[in-house]
């Protein structure tokens, strides 16, 4: 049954790719600089789901960290660490696709735009989480301290993703479109957000189970299902 669900996810994201590149129209008003094709704005169909997926993952890592600090179950710590690792990949891809679009729209890959700056800060904040874990050898100390750090992320991530970009009086980054947007664009972006979020949780699950196997290996050399 779970394999069937995986294949449904494959189909879902395949349809998102086809919809993004072949079905949804180009958003109005996005002609690139120097005569670049407006088709380059299609990168938004990937940029937004990566960005939302990474935010969902960072929040999930905070929730698992709070659960670990409350119940002291190792699997919650592993889940939090796995969530940060996968979220960083999604966040890096969101930054990369954003920079590609920035080059076309605003003439430079990086403009220190408030939203670009805030996503870079998110990469630094959560990159530091992984550094922190790598520096702490004792598993329980590592879990407690990194858990507290990731729990702090429940405040930091919403601030960086939603509040800081809006604090600036001016930003190059497009505002979310209103009712004037073609509904096909909203459909593809929405479907992409859902599909990429599900993909995130599958990747996080694989990574979490790998960490569990590695932990069992370190413990006594035998495999168990803990």
């Amino acid at each position, binding site marked *: 049954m779970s394999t069937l669900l*995986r294949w449904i996810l*494959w189909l879902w994201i*395949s349809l998102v790719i*086809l919809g993004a*590149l*072949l079905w949804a129209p180009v958003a109005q008003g996005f002609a690139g600089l120097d005569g670049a094709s407006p088709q380059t704005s299609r990168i938004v169909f990937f940029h937004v789901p990566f960005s939302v997926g990474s935010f969902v993952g960072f929040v999930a890592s905070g929730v698992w960290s709070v659960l670990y600090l409350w119940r002291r179950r190792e699997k919650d710590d592993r889940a939090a660490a796995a969530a940060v690792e996968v979220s960083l990949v999604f966040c890096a891809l969101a930054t990369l696709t954003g920079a590609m679009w920035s080059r076309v729209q605003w003439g430079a890959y990086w403009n220190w735009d408030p939203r670009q700056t805030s996503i870079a800060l998110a990469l630094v904040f959560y990159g530091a989480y992984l550094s922190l874990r790598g520096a702490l050898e004792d598993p329980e100390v590592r879990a407690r301290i990194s858990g507290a750090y990731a729990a702090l992320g429940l405040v930091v991530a919403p601030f960086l993703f939603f509040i800081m970009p809006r604090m600036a009086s001016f930003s190059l980054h497009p505002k979310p479109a209103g009712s004037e947007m073609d509904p096909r664009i909203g459909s593809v972006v929405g479907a992409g957000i859902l599909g990429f979020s599900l993909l995130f949780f599958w990747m996080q699950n694989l990574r979490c189970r790998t960490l569990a*196997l590695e932990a069992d290996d370190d413990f006594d050399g035998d495999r168990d299902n803990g």
Partner: protein
Amino acid sequence: MDDGLLWLAGVNLVLWTGLFLYMLRVERRIRQEEDR
């Protein structure tokens, strides 16, 4: 329809399918290790 977009869609589908099959393989290996 833009040929470039068709090509890009094809490349993306191939990359996504490759990633998907790799993840299925990883999951099968993990399950084998968990069942040992």
